[in-house]
């Protein structure tokens, strides 16, 4: 049981963004993707979600190419949280969450008890209960981010793919998100998150995949990555690496 990129090459608007990238996300595993802007992080995530075709290599879900799964089947196993919302802002939060049950319902069915239960659980878990009747257009960017995370959880996937989930969140919600994701992992869900903040990636723990110029530059335990050589090699800038007394991990900051 795994989500796999096997030597994939992906092109977007006639430009090769990913070259010969391989990655295997096992069930229950948590991995973070890091890398400089334009390294191909979002493209890799879209390819793994089956939302972008591969020009070479294969993306596999449970050893079967994603191209052989229907979109509805993929959505029952893989949920993708985009970086930005580009749709109609007049939907209410509850409507967005209800629409996320699409893959589990007949096209003409109304919501059943199970649907209502999942929506209530996940909106409470993501602290959205007070926002449930608000429209997306009236929410802050951080609140929207929570809505998309809740919608992905409402989808009940085995693999959760998050494109910069903490980008617009304040400290309180970053902590909430990290806690939520750990909890999801403990329930057997696999998590793949793009993180610009290396300290958030470190807080999530587990494995780290670093991309540079469309290729995998590092794939291994995050503690191994947090040294000056790896960091400057991937990001092209020097980093301060701090040990904080009482903290279980190191913290890194780019030199400015």
């Amino acid at each position, binding site marked *: 049981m795994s989500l796999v990129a096997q030597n994939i090459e992906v092109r977007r608007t006639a430009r090769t963004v990913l070259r010969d990238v391989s990655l295997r996300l096992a069930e229950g595993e948590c991995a973070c993707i890091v890398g400089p802007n334009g390294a191909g992080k979002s493209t890799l995530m879209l390819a793994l979600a089956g939302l972008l075709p591969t020009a070479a290599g294969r993306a596999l879900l449970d050893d079967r190419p994603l191209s052989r799964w229907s979109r509805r089947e993929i*959505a029952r196993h893989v949920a993708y949280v985009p970086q930005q919302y580009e749709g109609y802002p007049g*939907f209410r939060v509850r409507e967005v969450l209800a629409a996320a049950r699409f893959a589990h319902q007949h096209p003409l069915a109304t919501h059943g008890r199970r649907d209502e239960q999942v929506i209530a659980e996940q909106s409470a878990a993501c602290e959205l209960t007070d926002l449930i009747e608000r429209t997306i257009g009236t929410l802050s960017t951080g609140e929207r981010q929570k809505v998309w995370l809740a919608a992905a959880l409402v989808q009940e996937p085995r693999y959760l793919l998050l494109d910069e989930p903490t980008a617009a969140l304040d400290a309180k919600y970053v902590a909430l998100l990290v806690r939520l994701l750990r909890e999801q992992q403990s329930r057997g869900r696999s998590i793949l998150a793009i993180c610009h903040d290396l300290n958030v990636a470190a807080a999530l723990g587990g494995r780290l995949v670093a991309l540079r110029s469309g290729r995998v530059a590092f794939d291994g335990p995050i503690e191994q990555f947090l040294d000056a050589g790896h960091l400057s090699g991937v990001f092209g800038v020097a980093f301060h690496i701090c040990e904080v007394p009482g903290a279980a991990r190191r913290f890194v900051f780019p030199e400015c």
Partner: protein
Amino acid sequence: MAARTLLLLLALLLMLTLALAPLVGEASIRWRDVFGAPSLASRLFWEFRVPRVGMACLAGAALALAGCVFQSVFRNPLAEPFTLGVASGASLGAAIGLHFGWTGIWLGVFPALTGLAFAGAVASVVIVWSISRLRGSGSVTTLLLAGVAIGFVCAAMILLLEFLSARPVTNEIVRWLMGSVDRTGIDGLRQTIPFVAVAAAIIWYLHKSLDLLMMGEFVAAGRGVDVRRTRAVAYFTASLMTAAIAAQCGPIAFVGLLVPHMMRGLGGPTHRHLLPAAALAGAIFLPWCDVLAGNVLRWRSGSALQIPVGVVTNFVGGLFFIYLLIARREDSVFVQS
């Protein structure tokens, strides 16, 4: 307003429309004339007024439904059934028929002009789709631009036909292009109902997918919608339904723009409520526009001249367009990626 309350209110208004609109006209008709002994008034009611109001209801509902589909598929509040050249194709077909005098009856039942208009509309739908596919991705932007381009080409050819035709024929072409619901009578209504019924059923089947398409392509695909196939089915279904209406009535613009937008504002964007609300509102709006168009000159100056309904919908729609541009709220704007 709660969506269910809105639907109930619209259903009541539609019943009132069906009961009252056929009574209004140059010759005033009362209900006791209709159900009393056979008379000129009852013939006028059943043979002229009822098919006319029926066609207006059907066209209004169909155009509003098609408008919902196009606005959702293209995530653009200014998309409407005629944006993609359907009306231009139908108009060119009709103009060809009028220019060459092909205005008889095919197979003893089917008016040639309607058939040509339908063929023109379908041809433009297929050409627009093919152009968008030639570009590889079949993106919504290419589709919209292809529709606009085909509209220009058809408009040029119609102008040429008007220029080359004799004056009475040119007048007929111009009159056809104004859009009207009183041309084809009960037969036109019978021919159009199956198209609209089948298309409405398909659109209803897609209502959850349309919600997700409005949230963005990646979101929709990520939730399980086959975006390319859904978009193709929605596009052809709404276009063919529009073609069936345009073939009978000519181009009646703005109903498909104005009605879905208003219903989205009143009842919310979820298609489970939006589609029936828009269909009901369209079926109310167009008959009253037709009543206004058919009687305004008589009310003003006693003239028996009837303005084509397309003039009224264009006028109201144009004003609404200006309102949209000036007073639109943040959540009334779709974001095009």
